[in-house]
C-alpha cells in the first residue's frame, strides 16, 4: 500500500529509556505505533520511531477513538 511514512515493519533496535521515569525499555523487534507498558511507571508508551528507538507517552483517547 502506498504510504507516506516508511513501512513500519518489525525491526530490531537497541534499548531506550522510558521518557517519564527513565526505566530501560528493551529494544528487540519493534514497530512504529506499537504500544508498550513501562515496567517502571506502568505508563503506556508508543513507539514513534525506530533506528533509533523513540518512545512517547501514548496519547489519551482522541475525538472518536475506539469502541
Amino acid at each position, binding site marked *: 500500500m502506498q*504510504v507516506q511514512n516508511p*513501512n513500519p515493519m518489525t525491526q530490531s533496535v537497541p534499548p531506550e529509556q522510558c521518557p517519564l521515569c527513565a526505566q530501560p525499555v528493551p529494544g528487540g523487534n519493534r*514497530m512504529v505505533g506499537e504500544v508498550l507498558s513501562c515496567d517502571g511507571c506502568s505508563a503506556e508508551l508508543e*513507539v514513534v520511531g525506530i533506528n533509533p528507538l523513540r518512545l512517547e507517552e501514548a496519547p489519551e483517547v482522541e475525538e*472518536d*477513538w*475506539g469502541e
Partner: protein
Amino acid sequence: MRKVDLVYTRVRTEEKLLLEALRRRDCAVNLVQDSGMVLSMDRQRLTEADTVLMRSMSFTRARYLATFLEMKGLRVLNSARTISLCGDKALTSAALAARGVPMPWAFVAFDEDACLEAIEKKGYPVVTKPVLGSWGRMVARLDSRTAAEGVLSTRFGTGGAQDHVALVQEYVDKPGYDLRVYVIGRAVGGLRRRSEHWVTNTARGAVPERYEVPVAHAKLAEAAAEAVGGDMVAVDLLETRGGDIYVNEINHCVEFARSIEETGVPLPDLIADYIVSGARR
C-alpha cells in the same frame, strides 16, 4: 498464500496477537499505519493485498479508508457499510429496527424542547448517549426532569451540528451485568461483564467473566451482525430482570485484550481463520 494489509492506529495487544495469528497461517501481512495513508480517488490498485483488516481506532479514519479501499476493489473487514452503521449508535438502532431485531426502545431528537417533551411522554428513567463515541463516555441516566434539563442543555448548547443529536433509550434495569457475544462469521463465544455501576464497560472497571452463550443469545447476536453486515463484530446484549434479551450496541473493531483470558475464546485465531477462509457476509 493470502496477502493481508493490517491497517492500524497503534499496535496494541490486539494487533500483535492478530498479526501473529495471521503469520501462523502463512499470510503475508503488511502493516500500514492509518495516519500515513493517502488514497487517490481512482480505481488504481495500490496494494498487493487482496484483503484489508481494518483496525484503525478512529471511526472517522476507518470509515473513509474502508470506503476508498473498497472502491479500489479490496475486501475490507469489516466493510465500510458495517463501520458506518456500527460507529453511529442512531444508525445502528435504525439497522436493527429495520430487521426487527429486539432492542430497547429508542428515539433520536434534534432540539432540546422536542427531546424533553418526548422524554416526559415516555417517563423516567431514560438513558441518553452521544451517537458517536465509545467506552461508555457521556452516557447518562436521567431520573428526573431536572436531570434531563441539565444534560440536554449541555448536549444541545455545546459542540457542533453533529453533537446536537440526542439518542434516547429505554433504561433497562439489568441484573448487575451485561453480555457481549463475539460474532466472527457466526457466534463464537462471549463474555459477561459484571459491575456495581450501571454502565458496564471493562474500560470503566467492569469485571469480565466467562459465559457460555445460550443458543437464543447466539441467534440474536448473529441477527444483529447480519443487520449491519458485520463479518467480525462484538454484540452487546442487555438482559432485563424479567428475562427479556435485547441488542444494545454493536462494535466493529473488536477489542479483547482485557478479557481474552477470562473468555477462553481464541479470538485472534478465529479472526485469522475467517480472513484466510475468504468468507464475506
